[in-house]
């Protein structure tokens, strides 16, 4: 059955990403499950109900896809919420779903995802192709900068400053709410005078989420897209949008083009100035989060996750803010889940990951 085959592919992709991706280590400010355990059932049920309406009303897939800001947001909903969230809601008895309903839910979301990427939706080929031929054609190729030692350092620093800001705004666990990496795109490398080159795009599509962090109002821009041309790099990405760790990216970056709020910017002095500003905002934001009581961090996490899916709520003219009962759940359980999930998922064998992620059972 096609549907079952796709669920198997999804489980393969998740197990592969866990095996190769997660290594024992620190998560800032908390591990994903320490936060999502408090609201995964609410979010999963809320999205399930809305997707049911989209499905029954036969809303075109492309239109449904527009309610998600990026494929990463949808993919990570499938990863973090759709599976365990629906199981928790079902086993708690407050929102029952049959295996068939869950299969249909996943099947629909796979189809929606299929309209958002131009390759395998599970990224099993190591690629994530979002831009179409027309968009690639319209890239302002003349604005690319050939990098030397100095300009390379400036560009790489700027990229990492934005990466740090995303980390501070959306935590380790939910970085996809504001950023995405995609590629490698096949483009004629003649124009760059290199062989074995590839184009990879780093999209920082929400750097000023005032709805959840009003204090970042001083952030001078909202969106940055960085086009990077690497030579001799076999860039690969997995289901969780993590780049293959066996590649030295910085050492092989040879051309870059930066677009800030849609406009190319290639003045190095300006980029250095903006880098410093971003570092300052990141430091302030990080210090703010570090001072929050741990359960306030969980509340913030629920805001981030609902905010990431706001397009779906707005489609139904509803407020995207997390339901107030989540605060009650946090108060009721206190730090129970913070303690319970203070462990490394990296130790999970693939068979256990598959079982955990499989919507066709009630195990978590």
């Amino acid at each position, binding site marked *: 059955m096609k549907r079952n085959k796709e669920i198997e592919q999804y489980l393969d992709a998740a197990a592969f990403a866990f095996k190769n991706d997660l290594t024992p280590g620190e998560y800032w400010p908390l591990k994903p499950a320490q936060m999502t355990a408090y609201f995964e059932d609410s979010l999963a049920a809320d999205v399930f109900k809305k997707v049911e309406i989209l499905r029954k009303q036969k809303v075109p897939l492309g239109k449904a896809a527009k309610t998600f800001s990026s494929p990463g947001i949808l993919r990570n909903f499938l990863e973090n919420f759709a599976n365990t969230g629906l199981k928790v809601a079902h086993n708690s008895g407050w929102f029952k779903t049959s295996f068939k309903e869950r299969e249909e839910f996943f099947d629909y979301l796979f189809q929606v995802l299929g309209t958002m990427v131009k390759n395998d939706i599970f990224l099993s080929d190591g690629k994530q192709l979002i831009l179409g031929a027309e968009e690639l054609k319209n890239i302002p190729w003349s604005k690319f900068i050939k990098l030397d030692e100095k300009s390379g350092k400036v560009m790489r*620093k700027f990229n*990492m400053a934005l990466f740090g800001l995303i980390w501070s705004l959306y935590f380790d666990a939910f970085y996809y709410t504001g950023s995405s990496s995609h590629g490698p795109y096949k483009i004629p490398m003649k124009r760059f005078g290199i062989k074995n080159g590839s184009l990879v795009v780093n999209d920082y599509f929400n750097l000023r989420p005032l709805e959840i962090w009003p204090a970042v109002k001083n952030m001078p821009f909202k969106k940055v897209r960085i086009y990077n041309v690497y030579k001799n790099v076999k860039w690969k990405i997995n289901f969780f949008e993590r780049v293959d*760790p066996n590649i030295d990216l910085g050492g092989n970056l040879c051309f870059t083009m930066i677009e800030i709020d849609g406009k190319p910017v290639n003045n190095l002095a300006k980029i250095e100035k903006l880098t410093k500003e971003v570092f300052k905002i990141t430091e302030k*934001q990080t210090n703010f989060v570090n001072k929050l009581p741990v359960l306030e961090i969980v509340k913030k996490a629920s805001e981030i996750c609902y905010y990431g899916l706001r397009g779906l709520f707005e489609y139904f003219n509803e407020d995207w803010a997390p339901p107030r009962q989540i605060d009650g759940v946090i108060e009721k359980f206190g730090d129970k889940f913070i303690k319970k999930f203070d462990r490394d998922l990296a130790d999970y064998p693939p068979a256990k990951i598959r079982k955990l992620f499989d919507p066709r059972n009630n195990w978590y």
Partner: protein
Amino acid sequence: MARKKIILKGVGANSGIAAGVIRIVTDKKDFSNFKENEILVAKTTDPSYVMIMAKAAAIITDTGGIMSHPAIVARELGIPCVVATKKATIVLRNGQKVKIDGEKGIIYEEE
């Protein structure tokens, strides 16, 4: 040529060789002391550390894995990185000269 003495081993998180002076940063108050091209040694990191990672010649951490943030940042910056040393902040000293092999995950004594 005499073999260099191994001071510490961890997990190589980004390849490359770098030599330089150690700067241990365990508190944000230490950020202002960090100089361009020093070797950053930290227990763990949070987003505010990116500003000093971007100045570093290499990164060494006590914790983390190959997908941890210091490792990701090092790969994007193109600098060597060794993670999961467990005790770099204890064994290494500020001002100590070392050589780091990011592929093998080894920190050598440097004269």
